[in-house]
């Protein structure tokens, strides 16, 4: 099992930003001129690190010097933020586009599932599309014939198999498409986040199938996902990409932990520089804000979290109060909770430190933001900071499902039962 199934050597990919238009011709000619004289591509040098937020030149390394090996039978999770280079890496691995430098060596056929239902033709029936799609993904007609019944059974659309797929519901369409893909016989399978389709039952079926592919059939799988629970459950190892570079390589648990701790960079604010530039206004200046889990390294549903704020107050002799609001990703204020800091109109100039804790098993998984409101005499707003700091509560699987459960709250309430005939 220690055979290397796929090996990446210093894979990099350079992209030009902006539009391809009349201006590009001169660049092309310039490149050709350099090439003719046997020199290096002049634009390759100005390539910058892939960082969406900063502005820069027009050439960007979407991925740079990616170097790792995947053993046969291993399920490798590829994790990273949006724009970290995951898709580019997948495209290169599935030979949709070639790398700018570096090479990849693989043993066996590579089949990629960057999308389900590639090449489905709406006018053709389900049956015809199974054959067409299977062939596009690299199966031969005999292979598809042999697997046909299995595919149809897996998809659960037997009744509609001779109906054009344009009459299918979107769910049926996706089921059929995934069913074809799930029965590919290639030695290496590359899967993008296509599992985020269908209803919960079908998702479970897909994950189960993925597991079968690697465990029972010993095939190598590269799995790209944002679903940390799925990565943890399915994969045996993981790599983390950041700004187009390989940031971490290790087991799936280590990878997920690394990603989650490095991902939540936003959940802390430490002001550097002069006081005048700190967030706030002339009355209040915020110096520091941090959120951390009460137990463990990661804020999860059950861990709970503590937060602490340090600020400078400039208003004297008032009743100073502070209010925290936590807002979920739908901009719903989940709660609003205030505290009076000085009761007897005796506030003083100086640094306050306020901290609080939020017990676990109350908020559901998701991304949350803090609003912080400072008040004077519980009547006037001194300073309002909206969306000040963002943090994420990671999901924990409940029973067999990895999906985030619906609802704003994630309470565990005791259930009692009685039974009679």
């Amino acid at each position, binding site marked *: 099992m220690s055979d290397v199934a796929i090996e990446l050597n210093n894979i990099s990919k350079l992209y030009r930003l902006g539009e391809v238009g009349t201006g590009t011709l001169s660049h092309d000619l310039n490149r050709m001129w350099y090439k003719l004289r046997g020199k290096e591509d002049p634009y390759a040098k100005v390539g910058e690190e892939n960082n969406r937020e900063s502005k820069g030149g027009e050439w960007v390394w979407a991925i740079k010097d990616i170097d790792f090996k995947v053993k046969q039978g291993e399920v490798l999770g590829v994790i990273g933020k949006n724009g970290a280079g995951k898709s580019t890496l997948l495209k290169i691995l599935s030979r949709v586009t070639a790398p700018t430098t570096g090479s990849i060596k693989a043993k066996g056929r590579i089949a990629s599932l960057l999308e389900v239902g590639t090449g489905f*033709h709406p006018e053709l029936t389900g049956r015809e599309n199974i054959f067409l799609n299977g062939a596009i993904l690299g199966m031969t007609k005999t292979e598809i014939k042999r697997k046909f019944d299995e595919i149809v059974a897996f998809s659960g659309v037997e009744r509609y198999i001779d109906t054009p797929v344009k009459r299918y519901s979107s769910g049926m369409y996706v089921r059929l498409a995934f069913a074809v893909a799930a029965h590919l016989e290639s030695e290496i399978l590359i899967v993008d986040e296509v599992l985020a389709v269908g209803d919960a039952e079908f998702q479970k079926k897909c994950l189960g199938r993925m597991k079968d592919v690697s465990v029972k059939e010993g095939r190598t799988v590269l799995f790209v996902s944002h679903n940390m629970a799925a990565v943890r459950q399915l994969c045996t190892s993981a790599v983390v990409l950041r700004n187009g570079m390989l940031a971490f390589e290790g087991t799936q648990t280590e990878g997920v932990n690394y990603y989650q701790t490095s991902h939540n960079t936003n959940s802390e604010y430490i002001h550097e520089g002069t006081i005048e530039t700190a967030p706030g206004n002339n009355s209040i200046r915020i110096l520091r804000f941090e959120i951390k889990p009460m137990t463990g390294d990661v804020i999860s549903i059950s861990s709970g979290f503590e937060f602490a704020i340090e600020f400078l107050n400039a208003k004297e002799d008032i009743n100073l109060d502070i209010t925290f609001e936590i807002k979920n990703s739908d901009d719903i204020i989940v709660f609003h909770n205030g505290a009076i800091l000085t009761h007897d109109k005796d506030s003083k100039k100086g640094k306050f430190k306020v901290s609080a804790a939020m017990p676990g098993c109350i908020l559901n998984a998701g991304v949350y933001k803090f609003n912080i409101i400072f008040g004077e005499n519980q009547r006037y707003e001194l300073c309002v900071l909206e969306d000040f700091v963002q943090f994420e509560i990671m999901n924990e699987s409940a029973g067999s499902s990895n999906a985030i459960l619906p609802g704003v709250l994630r309470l565990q309430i005791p259930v009692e039962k009685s039974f009679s005939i």
Partner: protein
Amino acid sequence: MKDVHENTADWSLVIKPKAGLFDINIKELWRYRDLVLLLVKRDFVSFYKQTILGPIWFLVQPILTTLMFLLVFGRIAQLPTDGVPAIVFYLAGVTCWAYFAESLTKTSETFTANASIFGKVYFPRLIIPLSIILSNMIRLGIQLLLFFVVLAYYMIFDDNNLHITWAVVLFPVLVLLMGLQGLGLGIIFSALTTKYRDLRFLLTFGVQLLMYATPIVYPLSLAPEKYKWLIAANPFTAIIETFRFAFLGAGAFNITYFTYSIAATLIILFAGILIFNKVEKNFMDTV
């Protein structure tokens, strides 16, 4: 799992930045042969789905074009047709030309029309142009049936000098030449238009103009001796002339022109495959 490589030393697949100029993987093309056939079937089936007449629609275009040519070039311009009935003469030309022109324009759109598939999954890109040539060949077959019916009618019921000559043995070669010429030129254009779309506009009316530079609506014998070489320089000229000579007994078979046409087709095809092969690896970044 049947073809897992036991030998750990050799890699079955190596992905590199650039392919060698002659790095054409015929074996891989062959492995995907089922895909070619399924794509042909898709094109053919989806063409007449939800129509009543079905494949008969393939016949409408040659019939109407022939009638139009008959009116404009036969009756109004009164161009001679090498002594054979004008309908058969035009129908032969229209059928062959339609196959070539259709193959050329369709294959020239290979990359732009299939970008969504190419962006998601790998298979040898040459599969698409090959399937286009083949599906057009089915269409050609149906249109040729019409041609043969009309030809038979004129041979039996009409008094004229139509006769089939020995050159019919070249028929398969002719069909192959038409297809490969369309393929070769088409993939050259498809490769050139991935980044700069300008050539696409040229192609649409270029094909129309080219028809007049080919003896479709007139026989080669009509061309003045001085300019004959110019028309014969078009590799399609020998094909259409040989075709008419074979089935209608019209015109003459010129071995020089014919050999030239074969050579030109091979060169175009070879150049096309080379350019196509060079572009296919990175076209997704520029299309």
